[in-house]
């Protein structure tokens, strides 16, 4: 009884404790002499506490604890278990808990891997901990999910919108949040560099994995949301230029630009200030976007209603973070030194073009999104900016970006000659002209012709890039990733243009009747009733057969009634294929005949394939090197026989040998106040480990210094014993909880 009654109170306590831990972590990383180890431990503590809070909330949803207001408002015992648990992050409060938990995880990861950032590392941790503290304060003061319901109001629960009961929509918000958290990490990494006044190539290399992670998560999140809209709403189309969609697109565009800029910083040390500014802008766009979405200021089909106090608090938070970032830039940005200059016709110059293009797209999207607000504030006229605006304004920009993408990656850094580019990149032109000509011959419109031409240009650019990297032996993991991501953009472009050519028709058919549409016969076989776990449905079985073929496919499209929620949803039926999707949407019944919206969406599958290529490519291109990725702790240079002290241990280089080709070290580790020692071996790509009880002590080789000393990184981490204990105790806790409450 006591145990059951205390879940929300324990959750509240966990949130407050996490706030304290996060503030302390910010202080540990931000004080005059930073304490990285303390910051790391506190970040871990905050992550554990917030994971606990999220689990408690999920638990309350899983067991349908209707004494918790958040559960009462957003869940119902009749819903399937997985959807109940997913409901724990569907509401405003729950999503903030999830956001905070992910930020705490990212904070812990950053604290564990801050080594490559050098001096800026602890400052970055401090900045991210401050951001987390701000959100936690917002959470505990205005939006706690652990508020109790007065006993007289306890009821069976108000359910969750059935249209949102879809697996893609259960993981789409978490992924998008992960992307937003990623922009927060990029922001923190940039702020850390501003704090110490140093942005250099090493910073670029260290920042790249974080920016890449943010980009990958944002791409996955947006892609899944768009896939859901295409599959579940069934209206055809995958992007509706809704303000909420636009709000998620802005950080994606800016992070995509930042990804390229950070690569330029890492390779050449150029565009340093711009990279910092872009990181600040990306995070600002993410939180302002969330504010616009969550506050209900914008008219949107996705809008949540939010009370004004929360809206104001969120605006203050967004404004505070942005002003802090920009203020720090104004104060410290002047100290940053720029790299060597470059000519406009160079890879650096093309990266600038990419950035200008993506930022212009972001500016247009942001302008179109807030334009109605401005007009309404100034003149009181209410208007809506429709898709036609975005298509007309963005298509030329997209074509420009595509044109730069073709030859861009093959240009030399710093300066290149047009004649040399022409000699190397000439196959772009026939590919583009060929595709445009083919599209024109098949009767495509002017945008179709241009779009297919530029898509072919981009794809051919990726092929040329791949061929040249292959020839010169520069086809590393990063190269493959970059080529794959660019090819993915080309594939997405093909799909976007092709889906503009979809054909739609609404018909009314009775059982046994048929119609010919998009080269297929659509035959209604039967209209019938079915029963599902928490719904009843009535729909039509439709057989689709190619006009000049013999085999077909039977699909089912229906209207579902959810008795608990008292809502109706439409289930689309589709025959998916590599070249086209054939879809039928149930539109109600009329005197024993069914209303159907039939459509053919050419190359729809390419959109998701291209998106996946971008995700995998960006991941490959930005994943840190194995050795440096595992690095944390301290880098030291040791001559044979010399000793360094780190984390309460003495690390003595017993022996080192080798040259550039292959080298290795043996390091003897002994506790500072102990008499025994253990010797570990390490060579490049293979760190030495000593599992010492709860901890693991690691030696990662970095380089052989010219003076014959060996550079190694010494670090201490969570040992296998500790990991096993955590897993065991968590399992035990779950089993115990099950016995107590189940």
């Amino acid at each position, binding site marked *: 009884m006591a145990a059951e009654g205390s879940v929300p109170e324990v959750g509240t306590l966990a949130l407050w404790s996490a706030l304290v831990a996060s503030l302390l972590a910010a202080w540990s990383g931000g004080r005059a002499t930073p304490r990285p180890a303390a910051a790391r431990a506190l970040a871990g503590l905050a992550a554990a506490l917030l994971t606990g809070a999220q689990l408690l909330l999920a638990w309350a949803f899983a067991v349908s604890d209707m004494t918790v207001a958040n559960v009462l408002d957003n869940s119902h015992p009749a819903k399937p278990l997985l959807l109940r648990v997913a409901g724990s992050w569907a509401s405003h409060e729950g999503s903030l808990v999830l956001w905070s938990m992910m930020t705490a995880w990212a904070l812990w990861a950053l604290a564990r891997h801050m080594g490559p950032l050098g001096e800026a590392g602890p400052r970055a941790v401090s900045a991210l901990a401050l951001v987390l503290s701000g959100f936690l304060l917002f959470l505990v003061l205005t939006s706690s999910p652990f508020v109790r319901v007065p006993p007289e109001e306890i009821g069976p629960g108000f359910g969750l919108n059935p249209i949102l009961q879809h697996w893609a929509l259960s993981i789409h918000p978490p992924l998008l949040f992960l992307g937003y958290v990623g922009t927060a990490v990029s922001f923190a990494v940039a702020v850390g560099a501003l704090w110490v006044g140093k942005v250099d190539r090493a910073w670029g290399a260290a920042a790249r994995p974080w920016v890449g992670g943010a980009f990958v998560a944002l791409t996955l999140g947006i892609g899944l949301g768009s896939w859901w809209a295409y599959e579940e709403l069934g209206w055809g189309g995958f992007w509706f230029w809704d303000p909420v969609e636009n709000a998620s697109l802005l950080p994606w565009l800016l992070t995509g630009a930042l990804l390229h800029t950070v690569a330029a910083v890492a390779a050449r040390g150029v565009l340093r200030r711009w990279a910092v500014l872009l990181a600040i802008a990306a995070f600002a766009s993410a939180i302002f976007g969330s504010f616009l979405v969550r506050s209900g200021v914008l008219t949107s089909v996705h809008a949540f209603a939010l009370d004004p106090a929360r809206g104001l608090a969120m605006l203050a938070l967004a404004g505070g973070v942005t002003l802090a970032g920009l203020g720090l830039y104004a104060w410290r940005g002047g100290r940053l030194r720029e790299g060597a200059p470059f000519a406009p016709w160079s890879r650096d110059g093309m990266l600038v073009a990419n950035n200008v293009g993506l930022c212009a797209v972001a500016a247009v999207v942001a302008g179109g999104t807030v*334009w109605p607000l401005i007009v309404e504030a100034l003149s009181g006229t209410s208007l809506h900016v429709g898709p036609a605006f*975005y298509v007309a304004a963005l298509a030329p920009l997209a074509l420009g970006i595509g044109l730069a993408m073709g030859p861009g990656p093959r240009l030399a850094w710093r300066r290149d000659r047009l004649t040399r580019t022409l000699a190397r990149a000439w196959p772009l032109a026939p590919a583009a002209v060929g595709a445009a000509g083919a599209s024109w011959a098949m009767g495509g419109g002017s945008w179709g012709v241009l779009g297919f031409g530029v898509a072919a240009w981009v794809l051919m650019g990726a092929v040329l890039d791949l061929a040249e990297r292959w020839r010169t032996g520069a086809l590393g993991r990063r190269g493959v990733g970059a080529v794959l991501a660019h090819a993915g953009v080309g594939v997405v472009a093909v799909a976007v243009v092709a889906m503009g050519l979809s054909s739609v028709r609404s018909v009314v058919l009775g059982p046994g009747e048929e119609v010919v549409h998009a080269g297929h016969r659509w035959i209604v076989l039967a209209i019938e009733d079915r029963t599902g776990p928490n719904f009843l449905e009535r729909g039509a079985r439709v057989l689709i057969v190619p006009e000049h073929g013999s085999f077909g496919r039977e699909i089912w499209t229906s209207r579902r009634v959810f008795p608990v929620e008292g809502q109706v949803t*439409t289930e689309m039926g589709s025959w998916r294929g590599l070249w086209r999707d054939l879809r039928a949407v149930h539109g109600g019944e009329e005197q024993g005949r069914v209303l159907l919206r039939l459509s053919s969406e050419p190359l729809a599958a390419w959109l998701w394939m291209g998106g996946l290529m971008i995700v995998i490519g960006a991941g490959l291109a930005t994943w840190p090197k194995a050795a440096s990725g595992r690095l944390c702790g301290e880098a030291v240079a040791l001559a044979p026989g010399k000793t360094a002290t780190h984390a309460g241990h003495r690390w003595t280089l017993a022996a080192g040998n080798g040259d550039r080709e292959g080298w290795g070290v043996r390091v003897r580790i002994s506790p500072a106040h102990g008499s025994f020692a253990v010797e570990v071996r390490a060579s490049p790509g293979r760190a030495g480990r000593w599992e010492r009880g709860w901890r693991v002590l690691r030696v990662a080789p970095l380089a052989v210094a010219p003076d014959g000393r060996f550079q190694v990184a010494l670090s201490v981490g969570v040992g296998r014993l500790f990991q096993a204990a955590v897993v065991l105790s968590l399992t035990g806790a779950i089993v115990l909880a099950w016995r107590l409450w189940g």
Partner: protein
Amino acid sequence: MRVARARRRRRIAWAFAVVVGAATALALALTAIGDGVQFFRSPTELAALPAQPGAVRLGGLVEAGSVRREIGAEGRPLTRFRVSDGRTSVEVSYGGILPDLFREGQGTVAVGRWDGVRLDAWQVLARHDETYMPPEVAAALKASGEWDPAHGGPPPARRWNGLGDGR
């Protein structure tokens, strides 16, 4: 000296790039804004207007008992209904499939062409969340005097159709 000149040149190049980017975005946005802007009208406003050249966005409540489904040419479905703000109602015709949350007595937004008598809609929207009232619908209700936020929340859906009667 050379460094200073190179730095200045670089600043100029940067300023140039930023100006070009901003100017392009602005120019494209300004030329395109005419294509995409749809003015929101309440039924009372729309009824007073002559035929409009561009797209119109009509927000209000679907009048109860007004929805009629017909089968038009070539077996195409056609739906007719009236959208009301409690004072005036306007006829809408729509040839597509209505969204799930489209109900009589509920808020809706219809986008289409106004010929002075009827709105020929190509898009009809209802919201994902049935407890949520679109700001446009709320504005139409407030403008017609059917809902004063100072006196509490919006009128319940079941009453919307009868609003404005007896006046």
